[in-house]
């Protein structure tokens, strides 16, 4: 089956990101195709490239990147939700006249239309909220 995941919880603040990452791995493990993970609301913080959690705790940003590398899963971050929360890639930083950036590939800033498309294209969309 084709799956999509919608994640709306920030890493560390809530368990949502842990649950979503683990579910994503299990979906891929069952042989399903995970079409994309879409990060919305506070979920956009999962794309924070500067995250530096304690070494004895899971590194969720790296965890998502590894999932993407292992299974070719696009990591789509809602651009409107991200910008107001300080998550900008190089292009958006330039466009807003900011020095530096806080989001980098494999995370990509994209529009909400991608979420609608994902939800209606996939056989299953599973939401993880905070």
């Amino acid at each position: 089956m084709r799956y999509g995941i919608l994640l709306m919880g920030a890493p560390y603040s809530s368990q949502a990101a842990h649950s979503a990452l683990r579910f994503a791995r299990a979906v891929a493990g069952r042989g399903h195709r995970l079409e994309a993970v879409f990060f919305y609301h506070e979920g956009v913080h999962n794309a924070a490239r500067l995250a530096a959690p304690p070494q004895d705790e899971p590194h969720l940003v790296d965890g998502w990147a590894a999932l993407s590398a292992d299974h070719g899963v696009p990591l789509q971050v809602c651009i409107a939700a991200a910008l107001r929360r300080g998550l900008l890639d190089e292009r958006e930083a330039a466009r807003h006249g900011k020095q530096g950036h806080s989001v980098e590939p494999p995370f990509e800033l994209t529009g909400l239309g991608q979420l609608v498309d994902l939800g209606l294209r996939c056989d299953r969309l599973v939401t993880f909220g905070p």
Partner: protein
Amino acid sequence: MLLHILNRSPATSEVYRQALAAMGPDDRLLLIEDGVQGALKGLVGRFGDVRGRLLALEEDLAARGLEPLCDDSVVRVDVEGFVTLTEEARKTVSWF
């Protein structure tokens, strides 16, 4: 059959009532994260006639030390079982 997913404890959040209100007679309810507190013997009664269609995520029970306190009527599934449930359900609805 729809799979409803609840991650808040019925001890402090009223969200479980919204999940119950939206559930059809064949729908299932999976408790995850803090929602697994709902599987405790003292709280499982809140789910009324959903008993039998009420499930809880094993890993979240275990991490909280709640396995010994889980009511017998609650079906336990691990994350692979969670995926299977989503396969069997026409769609999922999350309550948080």
